[in-house]
């Protein structure tokens, strides 16, 4: 019977090509608009590290208070050197790391080649295992390198390709700002998006890091952060690097790995106690004010999903709703125009359910056609997003099987929902209708 309904539906749709085309186009555009914006939304709001996002925590300590006209009750979104080092020494988490972005120039061994700029992080050995960085060759530097302020470096596969033609370069050296660093490992492709571990700089969607060096070594060399630095007090950065490290300027990103609820609770009380100690010691003139957010909470707090994306998703959904209302109207017109046919079918013994099934099948076919058109338009739309949104975000939006499936599903479900009322009306046509009208 279903095949019969499909056959009837196809015949009916072919009878009014203009009306059918209008419905298909409405559904297609509505679905494409919402799916395109959804693709962008999905790209920017996803969980960058699903299996560990609930274990990785971002501690924040308020080292500014309401001093110097500051009114916010939220602690700064980065940490100053004093607090970061205190937490690092305390070593209360299973794993922990402090990092800041660096942008040194790399001087090639071949003296005829031009120096290049590279970007990356000064960090601790735990960084790699905490954030599940995959390695192509070698691995993270040993924790002892952190303690010994060693000149060691991890580079990414792309830089390795450029410098060493992609061969195993572990043990070789590169020169950053005039200092040699021994390569401990080469990372494989790794660029979780949003870049949760450093959303404060670059809004969370920057290019992948090329190098990593030990934090302790970078401080020895007085490397400055390539990212944001914020100071609250009148002293600012101070006059020297030593002043800077003592200042209340925040520029460091701290992460702790806390695998269990108990670990989270005890870390929270540790932070509380630490801040209380600082108050007692006279460094903080305010009550302890700390935060401990996991990855998704942190991304949400930092508003990593651009409001434009949310607004456009919303408006696209509104657009889809208008397209659906439009389709309801057109289907109603199309179905009610066939009231005589329905009357005859009913007189010939079709039950309401059979009429319902017939017209719903017809609507579903419009949905399928709309979905296919929508798919095509979504693909175009995702391409077009590159012209519209910042390329770092646009790059993330892509058409994959999940999106294809969702597009078709949305189109069909939406059309069938839109068809419910017109179909109900069609099924209420009285079998006597035709006799009466004559």
């Amino acid at each position, binding site marked *: 019977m279903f095949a019969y309904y499909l056959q009837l539906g196809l015949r009916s749709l072919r009878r009014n090509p203009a009306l059918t085309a209008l419905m298909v186009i409405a559904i297609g555009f509505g679905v494409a608009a919402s799916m395109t914006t959804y693709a962008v939304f999905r790209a920017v709001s996803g969980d960058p590290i699903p299996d560990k996002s609930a274990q990785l925590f971002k501690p924040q300590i308020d080292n500014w208070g309401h001093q*110097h006209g500051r009114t916010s009750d939220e602690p700064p979104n980065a940490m100053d050197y004093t607090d970061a080092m205190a937490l690092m020494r305390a070593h209360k988490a299973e794993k922990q790391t402090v990092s800041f972005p660096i942008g040194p120039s790399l001087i090639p061994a071949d003296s005829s080649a031009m120096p290049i700029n590279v970007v990356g992080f000064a960090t601790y050995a735990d960084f790699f295992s905490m954030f599940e960085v995959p390695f192509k060759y070698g691995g993270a530097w040993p924790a002892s390198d952190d303690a010994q302020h060693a000149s060691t470096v991890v580079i990414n596969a792309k830089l390795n390709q450029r410098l060493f033609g992609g061969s195993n370069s572990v043990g070789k050296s590169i020169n950053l700002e005039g200092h040699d660093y021994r390569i401990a490992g080469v990372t494989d492709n790794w660029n979780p998006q949003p870049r949760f571990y450093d959303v404060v700089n670059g809004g969370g969607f920057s290019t992948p890091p090329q190098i990593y060096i030990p934090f302790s070594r970078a401080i020895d060399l007085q490397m400055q952060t390539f990212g944001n630095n914020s100071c609250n007090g009148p002293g600012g950065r101070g006059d020297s690097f030593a002043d800077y490290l003592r200042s209340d300027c925040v520029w460091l990103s701290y992460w702790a790995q806390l695998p269990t609820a108990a670990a989270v609770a005890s870390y929270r009380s540790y932070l509380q106690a630490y801040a209380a100690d600082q108050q007692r010691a006279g460094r903080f003139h305010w009550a302890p004010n700390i935060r401990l957010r996991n990855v998704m909470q942190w991304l949400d707090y930092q508003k990593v999903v651009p409001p434009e994306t949310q607004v456009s998703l919303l*408006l696209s959904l509104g657009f889809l709703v208008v397209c659906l209302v*439009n389709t309801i*109207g057109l289907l109603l*017109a199309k179905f*009610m125009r066939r009231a005589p046919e329905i009357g005859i079918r009913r007189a010939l013994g079709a039950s309401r359910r059979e009429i319902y099934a017939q017209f719903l099948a017809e609507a579903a076919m419009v949905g399928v056609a709309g979905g296919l058109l929508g798919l095509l338009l979504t693909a175009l739309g995702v391409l077009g997003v590159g012209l519209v949104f910042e390329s770092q975000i646009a790059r993330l939006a892509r058409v994959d099987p999940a999106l294809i499936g969702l597009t078709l599903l949305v189109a069909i479900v939406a059309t069938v929902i839109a068809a419910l009322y017109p179909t109900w009306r069609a099924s209420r046509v009285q079998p006597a209708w035709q006799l009466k009208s004559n």
Partner: protein
Amino acid sequence: MQISPILSALRHHKAGTALIAMQIALTLAIVCNTLFIIQQRVAHLSRPSGIDEAHLLRIQNQWVGQHGDYAPLLAADLATLRHVPGVVDAYATNSVPLSGGGWSTGLGLKPSQNGPTAMTAIYFADDHTLPTLGVKLVAGRNFRADEISDMPALSKPTPPFVIITRALASKLYPHGDALGKSVYVAPDKPSTIIGVVRRLQAPWTGNFAASFSDNSTLVPFRLITNGTNFVLRVRTGQMGNVMRTAPKALYAANRMRVIPDDDGVMPFSAIRAKAYASDRGMAILMAVICVMLLAITAAGIVGLTSFWVGQRRKQIGVRRALGATRGDILSYFLTENLLIGMGGVLLGIALAIGLNLWMVTRFEMQHLSLWYVLAGAVALLLLGQGAVFAPALRASRVPPVEATRSV
């Protein structure tokens, strides 16, 4: 045209009438808010930076292999750049408008003031800065060459005097008498305002600097660090040449430097495009959605009205047989659409305002101007009339003989 018979006819098409009205209402709500967002974006991205962007080029430079004294390198590079053919003038700075990165600080009117009077962007400048940027002084004077001093990267800027923008001046001294007065860039030492420029935008275009986007302070310093931005004023028509020759001249003078491949050499037109990419993108996306929405709504009205006309052919024939003119039939359908449209528009106005209020609380948007709603309402009524015209015309051509035909 009598309205009550139309209304009673519509009562027999409750569903169709409600659907068209609802579609008009939703379209109005979405289009008003969308146009409003577009307008805000356009206003945002067409904000003037105050500099002569058409003639300006930025080169990002980082010296490598040397440590310590960058001052001679800076002086040498500037001399090199000023001699590149097509270059009118050049200076070096920490940041430029629209670049997205720079220094901001609070300014006070008293020493060690608790809480700043105004926030400002800090630009490092010399005597060449104003002529290079093409920024106009409205009061006071420019820096002199002998007033420019070196400042190492990590020190606190304590400028003896500053040049500020008019916007900042009126924030600090609302009575328009800022020139010659003091302002505290550093907490303890006052700086004298020696000049006021008409306009110079801060480096940030996002929300961060929304409250002080036109507040800028020029300080008479050379920033002595390994990286700098050179800003070049280029003769009309020479931009393409200078973009090629200027970095070559720098490398020829000293090849121990990095000028990034992708954004190292950028004319201000490109910097502006990059700074406002997401605003422009949003505006385009919204405009596309708006146009499609209006088209779909118009098509929906055409479709449903055509159906009604088809359904009522006999009735129209009877009316014609009873003496209705073509004009009567045409105006019947136009009036019918106008009535539905007005119902939809009334609902739509409420929806538009509701949607905007919700977005105001949820996305910190601004309040929708009522003019947008009214303009949108009129536009949708006209759209409805336009859409209904073709089917109505077809209805008016139904011959009176139709009355005698059976279905």
